[in-house]
């Protein structure tokens, strides 16, 4: 201490850099050795049976039975001994091995005369007699990726993504005629819709996260994805120096693009959910569900078009009126991800990826809410009106209400 106060601080020379970097590793190695060769925790695990945990990752229905993918999500290896279908022992084959190491996977094939559109229960019993249950909620053949199925799932995405967004945008001329006075109300309505989407996406993300084996820490994964997305969007925005200016474009365009991206990410999640539901046979409602989603998503088109409405005192005097191509582009950005989602959900459903995608959607929608809120505030200030006016609150509520009520059509 005293030396330090009188002499200039010098780096310690006793250990070279590599040694000091290696020291903690060596210590860690030593500790692991203690655990491996000694048994410091012997007191805790005296004669405890192994902890077993298996997760049904994916159950596919094939014409002559079922194909199940299992994940060992517990700390110990697990050996599958027998398989039961609907409370009956059934022949099966298991690849690559009946013993799953920690985080290992196995694929089970079961020949079973399943009954169309009826539920079936699949149970796995391990060599210690512990059982794990999976289910087929409604037995229909899981689609395999063929041209026809590919097109069908693409169309599904088109119906729930691109079509409703495009339809919503058709209101643009009418909205323009409503006049300046209504702009804030429409933006408020957009906010209501976005808040609904935020909550909806978050809840869906948590639901998917809940189906993941504990080791993957699903909820953290969702939140990290959301926060990262938000920061990424903030970084993009600050690099562009505030509202990025598109040459000659409408000043509302950057916000419209951001809205389209946020809503697009939400629609990706929605496409995933719908694709997975159709492939797992849960979506027995079929066309009803698709129509429901179309209605549900029409408001998204209105929201994206809202920032493009004419403003009384434009920041740039000579902006171009939005052209058809602008709308088509926005429609694709917001709607096309639903097609991608339907494909992934239908043919390669992965709960982990879905949780991450939904988390990304949460982050994006959050940033869109911030932006639309700021836009609304700027407009209100410029017009000398209150941000939280009766008409804005009314618009917000109507936005929430439309989403809430149309969601009745798509709850499955």
């Amino acid at each position, binding site marked *: 201490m005293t030396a330090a106060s009188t002499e200039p601080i010098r780096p310690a020379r006793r250990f070279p850099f590599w040694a000091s970097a290696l020291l903690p590793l060596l210590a860690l190695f030593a500790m692991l050795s203690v655990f491996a060769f000694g048994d410091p925790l012997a007191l805790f695990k005296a004669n405890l049976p*192994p902890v077993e945990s298996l997760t049904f990752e994916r159950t596919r229905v094939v014409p002559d039975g079922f194909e199940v993918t299992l994940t060992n999500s517990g700390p110990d290896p697990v050996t599958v001994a027998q398989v039961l279908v609907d409370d009956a022992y059934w*022949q099966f084959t298991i690849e690559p091995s009946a013993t799953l190491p920690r985080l290992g996977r196995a694929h089970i094939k079961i020949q079973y005369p399943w009954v169309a559109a009826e539920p079936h229960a699949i149970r796995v019993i391990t060599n*210690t007699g512990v059982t794990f249950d999976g289910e087929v909620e409604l037995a229909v053949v899981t689609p395999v990726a063929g041209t026809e199925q590919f097109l069908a799932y693409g169309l599904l995405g088109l119906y729930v993504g691109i079509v409703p967004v495009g339809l919503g945008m058709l209101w643009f001329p009418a909205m323009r005629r409503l006049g300046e006075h209504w702009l804030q109300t429409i933006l408020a309505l957009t906010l209501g819709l976005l808040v609904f989407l935020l909550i909806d996406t978050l809840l869906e993300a948590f639901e998917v996260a809940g189906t993941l084996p504990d080791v993957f820490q699903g909820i953290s994964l969702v939140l990290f994805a959301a926060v990262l997305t938000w920061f990424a969007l903030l970084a993009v925005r600050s690099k562009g120096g505030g509202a990025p200016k598109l040459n000659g474009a409408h000043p509302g365009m950057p916000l419209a693009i951001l809205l389209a991206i946020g809503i697009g990410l939400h629609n990706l999640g929605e496409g995933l959910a719908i694709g997975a539901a159709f492939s797992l046979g849960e979506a027995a409602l079929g066309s009803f569900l698709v129509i429901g989603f179309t209605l549900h998503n029409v408001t998204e088109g209105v929201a994206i078009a809202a920032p493009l409405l004419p403003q009384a005192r434009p920041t740039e005097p000579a902006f171009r009126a939005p052209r058809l191509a602008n709308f088509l582009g926005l429609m694709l950005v917001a709607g096309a991800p639903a097609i991608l989602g339907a494909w992934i959900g239908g043919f390669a459903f992965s709960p982990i990826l879905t949780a991450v995608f939904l988390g990304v959607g949460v982050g994006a929608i959050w940033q869109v809410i911030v932006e639309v809120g700021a836009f609304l505030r700027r407009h209100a200030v410029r017009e000398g009106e209150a941000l939280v006016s009766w008409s804005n609150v009314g618009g917000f509520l109507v936005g929430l209400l439309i989403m809430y009520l149309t969601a009745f059509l798509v709850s499955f």
Partner: protein
Amino acid sequence: MASKPERAGAVDRRGFIKAGILAGGLTAVAAGAAGRKGPAEASSLFDHGLGSPAHSDHGPAGTVGTVDNAANGFDPHALLHDWDFGRVSTLPSGQTLREYEITASDKEIEVAPGVFFPAWVYNGRVPGPSLRAVEGDRIRIEFINAGSHPHTMHFHGIHSAAMDGVPGVGAGMIEPGDRTVYEFDARPMGCHLYHCHSVPLKRHIHKGLYGAFIIDPDPNRYAGEEVAIARSRNHQFAENREVNEMVMVMNAFDTNFDGDNEIYAVNTVAFAYANPPIQIRRDQRQRLYLINIIEFDPINSFHLHANFFDYYDHGTTLKPTLKTVDTIMQAQAQRGILEFSFAGFEPGLYMFHAHVAEFAELGWMGFFDVVE
């Protein structure tokens, strides 16, 4: 609870870390868990090489693999005919004395291919030894508890209160390491059972502590046409050897301890008599001592295909209590004797199972392979 011994080949967590260190420390290590030999190739229930129906006829129902009878220490097919007559001597009074030594212990047994159950057993097997005596014999059982919990032996039969093998009466529950002697006269004649009556009762029963207790009729006590029947039922007479006698204890196992059985069977191993089936001669009379000891389910049943049988409820009569039936049901601890014959039948596989279809598909199903 019984401890589960570490299984050969299974890689536990410590082993995993150790392997990692030996492999050079902090490099990624693939857990090459070879593990216990899993179900190898599918061996269908009907795949017993007897010109049996092809897979496609019956579908691929049943378990995969085979049970290691040697490791279990008992073979369900051998259990069918494995009677324990005890050490026989004559008391000064002239009464026959039968002495048995029965030890309760903890043992892990394989109840279906690859499925292990931490059982409690009498003399190393489930069901316990099939004790057989003649009515009026003196029974003396030296019971040793080498298990980890207090156990008893409670006999279904006529005896004094002190010999009832229930908690708080007579010797009560026998603590681990202790022993006791149960002594009584064998009566009434019939098909009976014994089981542990320690508390908690459900667990002590379904863990495997039960067995058959058969008391043969003494022909000297009967008259008229009943004498011949009694001689046929009594193992000491040549007439008895003309009949193929089998004992089946209908049991079940709750392997995950959720109060619901995962495995149903006769004589412990799921589908044991489906693959391979029980071979019987079609010209021989069959006598089946059937006992139900399943826990958690109110009833069990027995159904014989393509044939009918006479049934003696509890075996306490020499005339059938039910004539010409093909299905009977038994509550827990109910039992009886079935008599039937395949004389004149086409040789082949004749199925028998619980006509509670759920039990049948969970393991309680078998075949008689009727041969010339």
